[in-house]
């Protein structure tokens, strides 16, 4: 073997070249014009031995502020929560880890039961009738929910609040741009809630009104005015949820007559990571059932009358319905859904609300500490105090400079909002969870006060 991880021997290569009548590997590249062919070596460092390489990579990794150790106060759609150690260990079981599309009821009762329990817990959390398992992530779930609404209402306009995660809105626009569906964005008021006047003006003839709960700014708004206006106009209401933990503390969307919940389940045991894998889910009222995209597991009886789990209502899906299927998503973020299920089951009916309460308390405590420390500065909460574990701080003279300064102080804190909301150029979005101990919160408060003062002068 010439290369350690390429198993062809010199003899193998010689025989393959002989079989196709080529003299050398370089001859294979003859069709590429010589002017654009690389001569000489790539400008990269020489190869290292494997132990040296591991040391090198570890040195590089240590330069990162890793989520496990750093004082991180970021949320904005991705949240750090404590996942009991058994979850990762259980996920490594080969029955879960390696199986792909394990949906054959004769051999996959365990997996199907786990998916069924995921759906059941999602329904309990959101207050909806049924849930699928699952979508790629929260953004695709939100988009699929909007598309479902267009099929159910036979309308082609979707109203979406600007207080919905900016990336979710981008995905929605990308999906719909060639489908003849128009997207109308509506703004927010001084309290961070959906602008009622803009909603009233836009809702006529809409298939759906999409809002986020709690919204991108962390604000928990009363969904009732949105639901009333939408239903009056014959539109469905879609609640996008990026932080499902909030639903263990506040009233679930189902309690307010929301028709569809599109959630991201990352919060529940899935580590924050670039590009996922994450886990989206759609939960909805029963009238949406036939238009629901994605896998659904139900309970059925076998020929001997015993209960068992099976994929159900598959006639909605691509393998049966072809181009008329409800969605081109015909898979399931199965392992991640299982992870979220184990997280919900581990915390349980009492633990999950307690965890949610802890997040609420810590975030509100953090805001108080910050305001106490920065009392003399222009820093203020932007949208009041109706928030769960995230809030917007405004009044910074130079947000980017403050954020960089905080990084030097050891705090990964604050998403500057100006990029997505030019009118919030003086604001940043902060998140506090149970992963931030009291000392970190104290430290953050004084660091923000110092940096705000420095940036002003």
């Amino acid at each position: 073997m010439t290369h350690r991880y390429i198993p062809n021997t010199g003899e193998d290569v010689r025989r393959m070249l002989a079989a196709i009548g080529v003299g050398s590997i370089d001859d294979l590249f003859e069709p590429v014009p010589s002017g654009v062919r690389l001569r000489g070596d790539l400008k990269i460092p020489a190869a290292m031995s494997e132990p040296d390489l591991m040391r090198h990579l570890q040195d590089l990794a240590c330069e990162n502020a890793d989520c496990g150790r750093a004082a991180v106060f970021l949320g904005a759609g991705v949240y750090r929560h404590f996942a009991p150690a058994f979850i990762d260990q259980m996920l490594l079981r080969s029955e879960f880890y390696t199986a792909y599309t394990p949906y054959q009821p004769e051999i996959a009762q365990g997996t199907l039961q786990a998916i069924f329990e995921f759906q059941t817990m999602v329904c309990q959390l959101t207050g909806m009738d049924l849930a699928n398992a699952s979508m790629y992530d929260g953004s695709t779930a939100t988009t699929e929910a909007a598309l479902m609404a267009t099929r159910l209402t036979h309308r082609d306009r979707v109203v979406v609040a600007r207080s919905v995660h900016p990336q979710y809105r981008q995905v929605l626009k990308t999906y719909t741009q060639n489908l003849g569906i128009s997207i109308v964005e509506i703004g927010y008021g001084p309290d961070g809630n959906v602008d009622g006047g803009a909603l009233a003006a836009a809702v006529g003839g809409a298939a759906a009104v999409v809002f986020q709960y709690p919204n991108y700014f962390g604000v928990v708004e009363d969904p009732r005015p949105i639901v009333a206006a939408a239903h009056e106009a014959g539109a469905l209401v879609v609640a996008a949820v990026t932080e499902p933990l909030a639903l263990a503390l506040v009233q679930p969307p189902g309690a307010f007559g929301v028709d569809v919940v599109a959630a991201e389940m990352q919060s529940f045991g899935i580590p924050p990571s670039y590009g996922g894998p994450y886990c989206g889910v759609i939960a909805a009222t029963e009238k949406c059932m036939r238009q629901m995209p994605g896998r659904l597991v139900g309970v059925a009886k076998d020929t001997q009358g015993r209960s068992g789990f099976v994929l159900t209502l598959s006639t909605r899906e691509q393998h049966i319905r072809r181009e008329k299927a409800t969605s081109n998503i015909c898979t399931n973020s199965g392992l991640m859904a299982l992870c979220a299920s184990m997280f919900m089951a581990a915390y349980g009916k009492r633990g999950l609300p307690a965890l949610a309460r802890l997040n609420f308390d810590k975030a509100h405590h953090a805001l108080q500490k910050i305001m106490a420390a920065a009392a003399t500065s222009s820093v203020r909460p932007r949208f009041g105090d109706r928030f769960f574990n995230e809030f917007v701080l405004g009044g910074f003279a130079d947000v980017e400079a403050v954020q960089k300064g905080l990084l030097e102080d050891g705090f990964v804190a604050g998403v500057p909002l100006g990029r997505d909301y030019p009118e919030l150029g003086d604001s940043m979005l902060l998140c506090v969870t149970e992963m931030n101990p009291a000392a970190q919160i104290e430290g953050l408060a004084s660091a923000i006060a110092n940096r705000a003062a420095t940036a002003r002068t």
Partner: protein
Amino acid sequence: MYPNDFKYTKDHEWVKVSGAEGQIGITDYAQKQLGDIVYLDLPEPGKVVKQGQVLGTVESVKAVSEIFSPVSGEVVRVNKDLADKPEKVNAAPHESWMVAVKLSNPAEVNTLLDATQYAELAK
């Protein structure tokens, strides 16, 4: 088997025309091919269809099929009884009308099959 006062399509729908209206359903042959019918997705009154266009869908335990409109016109009534009891279509396909359409071009009926022709097709 196939009522003489109905007209039929090659796609296995029937239409029973009386006056300006036609009631539309699927044939006995169609329900047998589909098996147990579990769901009907029917249009709202007011929908305008052309002959041959999709009127709705029939879902059985093993397949989903489209219902093609035998005639052009506007949907004026939908058989709501079938929503809760789609199995009626299996039990009595020729009595289970799904939608009633106000014909916009009654001459189209002449392009459809009569009972004898359809019975031959469905053999």
